[in-house]
């Protein structure tokens, strides 16, 4: 029998959905009309439309060759990209560590693969907008390959014989393809099983995607192996593409910014935000989605510890960046600190630190709060706000550090000097439209997918039901977890 988990004792934290009811319950919740969901879908669609309007007006006003005007678009894209690309990782990572509480979280995370496809589309304007690597103004007195601005590609033709934009979009495409493959593989057993209980367009899609899945032992073994391999590959691709994006679209646009910790910093805040978003969604599903028998407190308790760890890890990386730049007293590094942290973007920076560190830290510090559902979800929400502010600081800052048109062609470090730090760029109406549009479009795609496919991973929850029991040990009731490997 299913139980609510609202106590602090261990026994109150787990849920045990009944294996034979799972398919029916989940499919029923997926297919029924849900008013709040429909409203959310409509709102997201409206926001996305606003975004298109903003985008078109921005193109008309500034065109696609003045990259200074596109900072907020890039910031919003980067935010959506980092969160949604990190989400499927949660599944892969927790599956690898055999965390038993991950089961309700898997499909919620894997569904973000569809947003990965949207990311590829959203990225296309940015490829056009990015200024060419080759620009003699950046390093005067040099010729040929060295006359390019600093980039990981070491020159316009790059190490690899293709322009950077090509490799970046290929990376995003690879991510989208891999995550869709993970999603498909994960969906196969569920769709095969529920094919008969749905009707209409869902039935035909499920039939097509389920292929020839019969649930034989051999297929299950291949399934597991495939998930593991794709998950590992995806992990490495995500980290690599984060490195590409943040190097090409942030670091190389501020002359003299040589910072080896920026890609890890970006990746860690991406993971923190992804986990935060997943916790928010799980909270919503538990509270209002009718999934309280599937999502127990133990998931929030364990995930909140990881969220706390990621929060601390991000802060540590940020501090490492700060102290290395601050200590050397080099002009270029001092200028970057003043620009991105203490003068121009100071309000954004401090808000970033408050929402990404202080709020989640002080929420998640308390064990009783970690044992609730709202606590980690609130911390996750705060982390998301912080991540958004981080993207603004880094990408709007980079896109506006150098006024490209009037760049006079002095030393490479002329972009930011002691004498000249650019001011922060306040978003105008089109920027705000584009930002809400990008976030709205991502939400739209995800919400649509959540209605199309079951948001609980049926096979994984069933597997969990198989391996988890309550048992008595001495005087207490505890969960017994089977370890079949």
């Amino acid at each position, binding site marked *: 029998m299913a139980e609510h988990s609202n106590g602090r004792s*261990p026994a109150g*934290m787990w849920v045990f959905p009944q294996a034979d009811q799972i398919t029916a319950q989940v499919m029923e919740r997926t297919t029924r009309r849900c008013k709040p969901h429909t409203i959310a879908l409509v709102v997201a669609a409206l926001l996305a439309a606003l975004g298109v309007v903003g985008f078109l007006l921005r193109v008309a006003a500034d065109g696609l060759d003045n990259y200074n005007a596109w900072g907020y678009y890039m910031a919003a894209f980067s935010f959506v990209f980092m969160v949604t690309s990190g989400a499927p990782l949660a599944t892969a990572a927790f599956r*690898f*560590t055999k965390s*038993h*509480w991950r089961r309700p979280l898997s499909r919620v995370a894997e569904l973000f693969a569809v947003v990965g496809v949207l990311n590829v589309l959203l990225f296309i304007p940015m490829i056009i907008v990015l200024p060419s690597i080759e620009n003699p103004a950046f390093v005067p007195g040099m010729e040929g390959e*060295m006359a390019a601005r*600093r*980039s*990981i590609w*070491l020159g316009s033709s790059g190490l690899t014989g293709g322009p950077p934009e090509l490799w970046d979009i290929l990376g995003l495409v690879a991510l989208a393809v891999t995550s869709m493959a993970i999603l498909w593989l994960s969906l196969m057993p569920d769709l095969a099983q529920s094919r008969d209980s749905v009707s209409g367009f869902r039935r035909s899609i499920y039939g097509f995607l389920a292929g020839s899945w019969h649930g034989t032992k051999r297929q299950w073994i291949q399934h597991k192996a495939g998930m593991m391999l794709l998950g590992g590959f995806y992990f*490495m691709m995500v*980290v690599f593409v984060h*490195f590409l994006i943040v*190097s090409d679209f942030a670091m190389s646009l501020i002359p003299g910014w*040589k*910072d*080896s*910790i*920026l*890609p*890890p910093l970006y990746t860690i805040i991406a993971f923190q935000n992804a986990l935060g978003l997943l916790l928010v969604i799980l909270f919503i599903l538990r509270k209002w989605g009718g999934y309280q028998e599937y999502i127990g407190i*133990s998931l929030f*308790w*364990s995930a909140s*510890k990881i969220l706390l760890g990621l929060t*601390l890890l991000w802060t*540590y*990386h940020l501090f*490492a*960046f700060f*102290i*290395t*730049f601050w*200590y*050397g*007293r*080099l002009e270029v590094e001092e200028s970057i600190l003043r620009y991105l942290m203490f003068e121009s973007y100071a309000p954004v920076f401090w808000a970033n630190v408050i929402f990404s560190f202080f709020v989640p830290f002080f929420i998640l510090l308390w064990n009783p709060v970690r044992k609730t559902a709202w606590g980690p979800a609130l911390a996750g929400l705060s982390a998301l706000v912080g991540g958004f502010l981080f993207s603004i600081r880094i990408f709007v800052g980079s896109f506006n550090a150098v006024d490209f048109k009037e760049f006079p062609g002095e030393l490479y470090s002329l972009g930011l000097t002691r004498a000249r730090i650019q001011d922060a760029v306040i978003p105008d109406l089109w920027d705000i439209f584009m930002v809400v549009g990008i976030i709205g479009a991502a939400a739209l795609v995800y919400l649509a997918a959540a209605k199309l496919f079951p948001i609980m991973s049926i096979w994984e929850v069933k597997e969990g039901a*198989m*391996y988890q*029991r309550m*048992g008595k*040990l001495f005087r207490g009731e*505890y*969960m*017994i*977890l*089977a*370890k*079949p*490997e």
Partner: protein
Amino acid sequence: MQEGRILTATEVNRDLLRSILDTPRWFWPVVMALGLVVLAAAIVIGVMINRGLGITNLNRPVVWGFFITNFVFWIGISHAGVMLSAILRLAKAEWRRPATRAAEVLTIFSLMTAMTMPIIHTGRPWRIMYWAFPYDFARGIWPNIRTPLIWDPSAILTYLTSSSLFVLIALIPDFAVLRDRTTGISHQVYSMLSLGWQGNPRQWKLQIISGVLLSALILPVFVSVHSIVSWDFGMAMAVKSWHSTIFAPYFVVGAVHSGVSAVAFVLILLRKAYGWQAYIRHEHIDALGRLLVVVATGWFYFFSMEVIFGIYGREADEIAVRSLQFTQWPVSAWTMVFVITTYFIPVSIWLSRYCRRNLWIMSFACISVNIGMWLERFLIIVPGLANRQVFTFSWNMYSPSIPEIIIISATFALVAMLMLLFSRAVPLVPLYDIKEGDILKTEIQVGRRAVPAVYRED
């Protein structure tokens, strides 16, 4: 996975206390031999203090060489303790149980050994006490807290203190077992150390809580120690290849990599030396291997970031160092060896289940990692100094001298000797952790199979 049968408490006590209550025949000869190496180094250090650092091969510009490399290496090894005992305890990994004590003890002794290195490498070590110690002994001048060289002792001593406390508290139930099985002076010492342990529920509750609390509290120390040691290099702006923002997490992950490999090797040795095959099983070494794949890949990511962004700036002074590291013989050969032994050989081995379960192959992989990590520190420090700045007239390379080699070998001998001596007084596999693990083991029926299972608290 759970292999091996569940053991009774009597068996556990008898087996794990074997190192204390009996003495194997090889014990004293091995300790003597190690002691001789340490003695040789002590003599060399005496000569060095008397005649000056000229007996080493340090020169200008390479004024930091083998001693500092060794210092960073041993600090790195010391990170295994917290990784295995604290982090895995918080992650509720059952397979940590035999490894924790050996890891923590290795931490303490490698920290102590590491601390001797900066002391002997300074020009006037006897003055350090007066002026680096945080008190204004002379003329109202305190140490300069702005320098990473003062952050170092604070961090390392904090880590040493907290690790020691961690070990001593975790040892209380085991000391009580020993108290009940010894007489005379041993009995009195163990009684004192076991702090009146009776094993009643209240004491067990306090014991578990303190274990969890200390595990959580030691985590910030663990991260900060090697970050601070890395900032000995990261804060220097005149050595461009050192001035990289990623040094802190890079060194920490590298430390976990080399430390956990070292512990895996130590466990394999202990298993053989004391006949602990029932306690340190293949499954534990297998799990360590899988953890190491993740850690090694993380390390490789940070290493790639450091190299890529070093070259990124295309600054002449940095390119000078990189070209020395990657293109000039023999340093380029060492770099190749380092990358292969730190990552490619071990990870290829650890990806294979057969290899993870073969103790000879695992030992080889773990030693390979530590050779590679020692080389890594050397290749960060020495080429950075050798081709420093654009004044090529002042460039010079460095190779070690016999005194330095003797002292470095002696640090390995010292750690081994201290661990062996310690194993005479303290069980290196925690008794109550093993017993607790056995209590939590059970089985459930899944379909037609009886699957091994474990009781969980979360």
